């Protein structure tokens, strides 16, 4: 675990419901991480409240810098959204177990909903660098809530679905999986719980071969297995999201 005080480089909305925060974090960047791992960021002045750091998966990385992508959902992220270039944040990580990429070249299908798209860009960049083909699907209620296409590496095939039909496929992303699943050799997903449930229903008959992995979210006071707060019920018993996850096999949880 690296503890670092990182300067904010930029902190700007990338789309409706997503703010990209670039941090100068050379120690964390040098330590390396697997896509899907996360960092804990203190979202308060030192010693202030909220007392506990917030967990954010790593969105992108680039030579001494890392980016997080987050939505404002409460006091902590509200405070974070007000940070400006030069402000210093205290964080620790990387933590948890990230996605497992196959050894040989594969066709990877990434499925994202909401701010769950955050780790998928890092996963896509890593997968491309290791010789995989990547198709990324993202669903949202409306076009403005989609991560812009230029936020993805250009080699990624980016497929979007909107519930109101304002861009891409019409409906939920989980209603349009068939042809992409048939193409894929592995599947990775991150999004809200209802998306995982729909994904499990859609893949139960013809998606087991892809061994779908998901990134779960649960309130994590500590982030490294101390507090036992972030319990997730799985087919193998209760597991801790922060330490045993946040990557789980879809069918172990849903």
């Amino acid at each position, binding site marked *: *675990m690296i*503890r670092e005080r990182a300067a904010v480089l930029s902190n700007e909305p990338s789309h409706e419901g997503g703010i990209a925060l670039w941090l100068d974090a050379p120690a964390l960047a040098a330590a390396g991480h697997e896509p899907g791992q996360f960092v804990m960021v*203190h979202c308060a002045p030192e010693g202030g*409240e*909220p*007392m*506990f*750091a917030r967990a954010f998966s790593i969105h992108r990385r680039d030579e001494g810098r890392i980016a997080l992508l987050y939505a404002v959902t409460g006091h902590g992220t509200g405070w974070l959204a007000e940070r400006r270039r030069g402000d210093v944040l205290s964080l*620790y990580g990387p933590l948890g177990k990230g996605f497992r990429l196959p050894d040989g070249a594969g066709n990877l299908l990434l499925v994202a909903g909401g701010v769950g798209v955050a780790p998928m860009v890092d996963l896509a960049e890593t997968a491309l660098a290791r010789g995989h083909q990547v198709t990324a699907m993202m669903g949202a209620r409306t076009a403005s809530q989609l991560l812009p296409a230029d936020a993805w590496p250009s080699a990624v095939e980016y497929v979007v679905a909107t519930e109101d039909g304002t861009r891409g496929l019409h409906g939920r992303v989980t209603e349009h999986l068939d042809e992409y699943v048939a193409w894929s050799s592995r599947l990775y997903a991150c999004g809200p719980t209802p998306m995982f449930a729909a994904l499990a229903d859609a893949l139960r008959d013809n998606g087991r071969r892809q061994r779908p992995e998901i990134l779960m979210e*649960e*309130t994590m*006071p*500590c982030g*490294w*297995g*101390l*507090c*036992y*707060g*972030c*319990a997730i*019920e799985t087919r193998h*018993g*209760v597991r801790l999201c922060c*330490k045993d996850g946040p990557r789980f096999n879809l069918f172990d949880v849903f």
Partner: protein
Amino acid sequence: MSASGTSGVGDDFARQHNVNRLGAFVTKAVTLRRRQGNPQPRTVETPAGMLNSIGLQNPGVERVIADMAPVWAGWETPVIVNVAGETAGEFGALAAALDGVPGVAALELNISCPNVNNVLDIGQSVLAAGRATRAAARATELPIIAKLTPAAQEPAQIARACVDEGAAVICAINTVPGMAIDAEARRPVLTRGMGGLSGPAIKPIALRVVYEMARAVSVPIIGCGGIRSGLDAVEFLMAGATAVQVGTASFANPHALLDVIDELEAWLEAHDVSDVRDIIGCAQQFETDVPAPLLEPVEQHAAG
């Protein structure tokens, strides 16, 4: 030392830190049988603290001994195993299971967790706390630490009962029973309603209880409750504690335990205190409104 339930059974902690810098490592509570713990939500952040309702998730005493005792045996720092039972008999059985296990230095009796049935009830009753302590003390040669709740009407009386029945050390306090309400849902946030409040919010309560207990018993007291700095530790020592535990602060700051040690040493040096024992209980010399805790003897209390 670590406070029970805030640093697991030590494997993760020892991977990140030099565990041998701690005065002792106290494990997460261990029960006779495996416990899954409580359903979500398990934690609620509150002003200057948190409520938890973890529910003593653990794999059971046999499994913990098999997996961890050999690891603990390799540490220089003593390991105190926190044990939780629902009856005096269970405390006895837990003590028997841990008696003589290499790597285990002492037992801490959890008769104060608010998140499972019966445990808090034991800690609120002079008779039941005494019985649980006696059952454990008879089953093992290991030193017994009784970890007590501030929820008892007279925490100092509970401490006396535990000491009378064989506790070598008192630890105070465990979490304070509390509650959070979800206004939109019009119901308690936690499934069991009640949870355990911890963090800086409970420090004044813990100081008061330690202060009272230090007047009631002659055995060492471990202070616990809201400690997150060396200065906090100093205050507990002055109240009468001989050692302190750091709990919730470790969730907010992964380095909290070692920071408290460093800051305590720096404070002592800055104040020309060459022996930490010189400040233990020094705040006791002043007359206060804290009621004289030496009420009637426990035996009479029990008989009445």
